[in-house]
């Protein structure tokens, strides 16, 4: 069974009878059993997925209509709720938590006959960008298992890259889909804020995060976005007015104006990444686009603003984990309320605790004006700057991450140097704009992704440009 095919190739194969969903899903599960010891992408694997796939085959044989996903095996980041299944957020705090309901994205994929093969690893509560902060151990980069796969959706990216699924759902708060997509050489998408429902996504920083697909190709990404996007009555922040993303994706980028963000391509950029960026610029120009440098002054402050806002929201979003209504086994007998909650919450990992301390500090009565309010103002000004740039440009380009994938353990003890890994990705989150990471080059065994960003609700145009860029590159296969 050839598992190295795209989601669209899979769907076409199942529909024309050349691929059996059951065989493909069974093959995928066997493959997971074989390679995941090395990759550790999965936190739970659903053996029942084969039965789901068999049902799809039956439907097809009996001439019944099947959903667009045709039983394709999909992995799901473990902060997205699936009814009746464990949803741990890679935290000891939710080690035993089983969700009683489906996230909206899960219902929509189910309705299109997707098959979930399991839940994938992440940094605890999505706080991190290497997957090393998972309470259940890190994931490893399929390109080189000494490297981090990036994060926080590291399990999603690694599982797509290692052919343990055809696509995955991740979540992107400050680059958590795009960063691991870049590190693992897959496509990662952060939609316009409000395009995809967050109902059932366990909140980290709810005002800026989105669920996004990770896939092998830009077309697969657009296909998945078509399934999961759209207004949801369960999420007041979803927006109307989205369209279809796969149709028209081959429109090309002739005549488009692309801004190269100087704050994201200058100092601190790895030479290999810088040269890949120049290469990307010339290829885009070769396709008929014009490229020009643009400066976004507020980008310098974006990471500090990002961490201030996310810590504040996380501090509040994670307050509900007091272990009273759900959680792990710890009797209340003999405890006073506050001491029980403190005891129960000592299961959070050190990075979560650090950010929680920050999240208690920066919005507190004495410090809010200096930190939290200022961060909100930077966010507003950055959004205005980006809005101004989109009056002149159709798209903005930068490398997704200014550095190459690094070794596991290299930065874990230096929170501030980890901050800087986010410099190119947080702008899209803080301003609500859509952004995509497209696999562009591989330096040694270290992949490099290019990031394109578009104006709000211009997701279709963004995917068209990403597809055009993708067509200019031929990359080596993952050395698995």
């Amino acid at each position, binding site marked *: 069974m050839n598992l190295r095919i795209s989601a669209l190739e899979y769907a076409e194969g199942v529909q024309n009878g050349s691929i059996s969903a059951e065989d493909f899903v069974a093959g995928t599960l066997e493959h997971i059993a074989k390679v995941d010891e090395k990759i550790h992408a999965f936190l739970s694997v659903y053996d029942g997925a084969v039965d789901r796939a068999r049902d799809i085959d039956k439907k097809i044989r009996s001439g019944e209509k099947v959903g667009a996903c045709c039983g394709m095996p999909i992995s799901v980041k473990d902060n997205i709720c699936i009814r009746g299944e464990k949803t741990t957020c890679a935290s000891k705090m939710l080690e035993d938590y089983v969700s009683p309901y489906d996230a909206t994205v899960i219902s929509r994929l189910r309705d299109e006959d997707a098959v979930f093969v399991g839940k994938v690893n992440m940094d605890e509560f999505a706080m991190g960008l290497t997957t090393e902060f998972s309470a259940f151990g890190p994931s490893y980069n399929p390109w080189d298992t000494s490297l981090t796969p990036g994060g926080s959706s590291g399990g999603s990216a690694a599982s797509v890259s290692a052919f343990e699924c055809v696509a995955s759902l991740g979540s992107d708060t400050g680059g958590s889909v795009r960063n691991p997509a870049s590190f693992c050489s897959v496509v990662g998408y952060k939609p316009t804020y409000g395009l995809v429902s967050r109902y059932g996504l366990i909140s980290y920083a709810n005002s800026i995060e989105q669920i996004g697909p990770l896939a092998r190709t830009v077309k697969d990404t657009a296909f998945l976005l078509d399934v999961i996007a759209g207004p949801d*009555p369960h999420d007041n922040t979803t927006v109307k007015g989205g369209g279809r993303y796969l149709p028209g994706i081959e429109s090309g980028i002739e005549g488009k104006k692309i801004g190269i963000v100087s704050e994201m391509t200058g100092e601190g950029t790895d030479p290999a990444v810088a040269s890949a960026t120049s290469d990307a610029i010339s290829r885009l120009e070769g396709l008929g686009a014009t490229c020009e440098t643009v400066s976004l002054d507020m980008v310098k402050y974006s990471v500090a603003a990002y961490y201030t806002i996310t810590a504040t929201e996380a501090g509040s979003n994670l307050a509900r984990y007091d272990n*009273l209504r759900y959680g792990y086994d710890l009797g209340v007998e003999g405890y006073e309320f506050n001491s029980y909650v403190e005891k129960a919450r000592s299961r959070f990992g050190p990075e979560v605790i*650090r950010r929680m301390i920050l999240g208690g500090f920066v919005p507190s009565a004495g410090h809010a004006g200096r930190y939290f309010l200022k961060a909100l103002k930077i*966010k*507003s000004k950055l959004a205005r700057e980006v809005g101004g740039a989109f009056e002149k440009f159709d798209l903005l380009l930068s490398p997704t991450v200014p550095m190459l994938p690094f070794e596991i353990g290299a930065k874990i003890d230096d929170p*501030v140097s980890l901050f800087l890994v986010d410099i190119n990705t947080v702008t899209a989150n803080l301003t609500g704009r859509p952004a995509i990471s497209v696999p562009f080059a591989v330096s040694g065994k270290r992949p490099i992704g290019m990031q394109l960003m578009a104006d709000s609700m211009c997701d279709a145009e963004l995917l068209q440009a990403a597809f055009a860029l993708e067509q200019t590159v031929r990359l080596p296969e993952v050395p698995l």
Partner: protein
Amino acid sequence: MVTEDEIRHVSGLMRIKIDDYKEYIDKVNAMIAYFDILDSAGVESEEVSFHEMSVSDLRKDSHIPFDGSLIDQLKHYKGAYVRAPKMSR
């Protein structure tokens, strides 16, 4: 600079018990020191903006109960209550 007392106070506020406060001081201080860059952004006069929606897009007022018994799927005591630790009243 954040002192050990401040870390102690904030961790209490967030209901997190830390065994070794000193372990957290350096890292949290490094993070907060990095946030000082916020002071130089010159955004004091900037207006803060937010997402908006119309009243007409809000949820209609109708009663739709949860499908199934939720309490059965949560921690419960004597069948129906959630038990909390002792409260100091």
